[in-house]
């Protein structure tokens, strides 16, 4: 799951990035509203964490612009001001949730997961395909009640595929959701992760099919 942080304080952005990356999110970070608007026009993100106090323009303005341009991504606003009006206006202008500074990073993480779940249309934190279940809160995968040990990237690939079982997920889409800009991605990196996943899911788990020239598909029940 890929998240964009829009925050002018580098130190805070660095911290959020590290903290969320360890929770399995692919993180990117920009420090101005203009950059945020530009990047969101082209890149698919699952969530935007938007600080309202930006140097170049008001965070609320960024919010309005994004929604006007029909960016559907869920947006969580961060505010350092305690004014209720800020939160009300933020939510009314199209934000999905808010957090006041100083916030607990675990709360940010949980809210991020909840927002992403809701936007994908499956509020249940546990994704199930056949006998395979993926708990998005604890980030653990079970196959017939036994735990499957998966690495961070493998989890990300599996989560994306399990979110759309029985449907083809294109390579581009998968790459965009799993890797951030700073990850050095080898051309076949995705195939490597998918290969490892297949190995770990056999023999009882659902099958990941390769659709040549398009992408991958997790076969449904």
């Amino acid at each position, binding site marked *: 799951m890929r998240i964009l942080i829009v925050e002018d304080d580098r130190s*805070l952005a660095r*911290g959020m990035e*590290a903290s969320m990356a360890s929770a399995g999110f692919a993180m990117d970070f920009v420090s101005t509203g203009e950059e945020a608007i530009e990047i969101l026009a082209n890149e698919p993100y699952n969530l935007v964490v938007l600080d309202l*106090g930006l140097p170049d323009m008001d965070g609320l303005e960024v919010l309005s612009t994004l929604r006007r341009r029909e960016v559907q991504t869920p947006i969580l606003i961060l505010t*350092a001001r305690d004014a209720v009006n800020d939160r009300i206006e933020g939510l009314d202008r199209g934000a999905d949730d808010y957090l006041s*500074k*100083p916030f607990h*990073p*675990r709360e940010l993480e949980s809210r991020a997961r909840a927002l992403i779940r809701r936007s994908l249309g499956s509020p249940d934190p546990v994704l199930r395909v056949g006998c395979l279940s993926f708990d998005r809160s604890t980030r653990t995968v079970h196959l017939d009640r036994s735990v499957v040990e998966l690495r961070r990237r493998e989890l990300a690939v599996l989560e994306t595929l399990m979110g759309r079982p029985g449907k083809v997920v294109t390579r581009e889409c998968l790459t965009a959701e799993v890797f951030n800009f700073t990850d050095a991605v080898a051309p076949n990196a995705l195939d490597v992760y998918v290969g490892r996943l297949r190995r770990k899911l056999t023999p009882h788990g659902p099958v990941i099919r390769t659709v040549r020239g398009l992408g991958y598909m997790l076969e449904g029940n």
Partner: protein
Amino acid sequence: MTSLRARLTAAVMMPLVALAIMFGGITCWMIHRTLSTASDRTLVGSVTMIGRAIITDTSARHQLLPLAIHLLQSQMTPVSHYSVYDGGKLIAGTAWLVPPDDYDPAPGAKIPRHPPASFPLSYRDTQLVRGYVDARDAKGVIQPAYLRDAVLEGRSVRIATEIRTLPGFPHPVVIQVADFLGDRQAYEQKFFLRVAGAGILIVMTAVLLFYGAVTWGLGPFASLTRQIDAARRPSTSHVRLMLAEDAPREALLLATAFNELMARTERALSSLREFTSNASHQLRTPLAIVRVHIDVLNRYGPSSPQGATALADIGAAVDSLERLLAQLISLARMDEQGPETISSETFDLTQVAAGIVANRVTHPDAAAMDIGFEADTHAVLALGDQMLATEMIANLLDNAIRYHRADGTVTVRVLTREGTPVAEIEDDGPGIAPADREKVWERFYRTPGADAPSGSGLGLPIVRALGERMGARVTLADGAHGKGLKAVIVFRPPEPQPERTDDTYFAQARQMTAC
């Protein structure tokens, strides 16, 4: 608690009531006088009339006397009690109306014992002969009609008495007519009551009229009171008193003063609110940084590269929190202290600035910087508080070091320009755009630009506040060759010290500045 209206009404009504009582008293006294005189006249007139009827021939007397009595009794104030005595013998009338004590029944007695009753005449002067218009009627009168008070049958009476000789009667005949004083008083009381009633009516009308007038006159103040009362409800904000254009000057003055006070209070409140909101904003971000990085430390451990960055970031955040706290405290202290606590002394600016530079050269941030000190004379004297001046220069120098490249150049300069002492702090760093140079004096304003290290936006406002307290002006200008920034503090020059030869310090100082 009495209302102003009630007070004013009472204050005016008290004297008015006193006046009304006095006027009523005078009126009653005059009524009493007039009625008494009128009754006395009637008595005297009645006596002379009976006397006139009696002196006729015996044959006519029997018809005339009842006729006279009848006429008298059909008057408006009827005469009901009369008597005619011949010596001790009652001839006609009421028996209890006896002759006076000094009545001398001797046939030869002719001496009048009392002056005749007289009434001042204001409009006509009829000559009376012993009480009679016709002198013939007065023939035989011994004692012309006079008035006396007596108590008969236990009641106070007013009696008119005439004594005369009559042919056919052995003794001088006493003719008397009497009035009960009680009757007179009862009659007078009727008038007194009317006067009292009229007085009460007038006073009440006056109260009503005056209350109305006061209400009208105090209308603007009543409106002010209502508005203030309405403003006391907790939810009310932006209270302003409104008055009509033609309201009295006093009320307008009051309303204007109140409105100005409210505006000042609102400004102070809103600036306080803004300050609190800004201060909390400034405190929240470093706190958020600390929290997030502690989480990073927990996840990755302190020995990982992420952990190392987190530790550095936490340190920086704590530093900025500490600086912010110190600045907030010094601002708050400045806001709460009055300017009277500032000492005004003469100090050596060169010495102050040199001390600060020497202190800052060793600062770790400034390790690679070229920090210089320039002074064109040995001593530059300035007037003000040395502590505040130190604080100002140190703040500006710290700013120059903090927002600068690690290998930049900063120069502190002390000079005298047109007789006034000046300190300049110049750097060749990023500078401040001319458009921002006014805004940077506002509390919590931070120049846009993500590359600058984040400050609290309080450093420059503190410098200006310090300067204002000791009469020093701070301005920002371009640095040398249009690069960087030059902060200029213009201090107050020391006042010329006339003939203070005992103070060797000043004498030395003057010599030093002269050369």
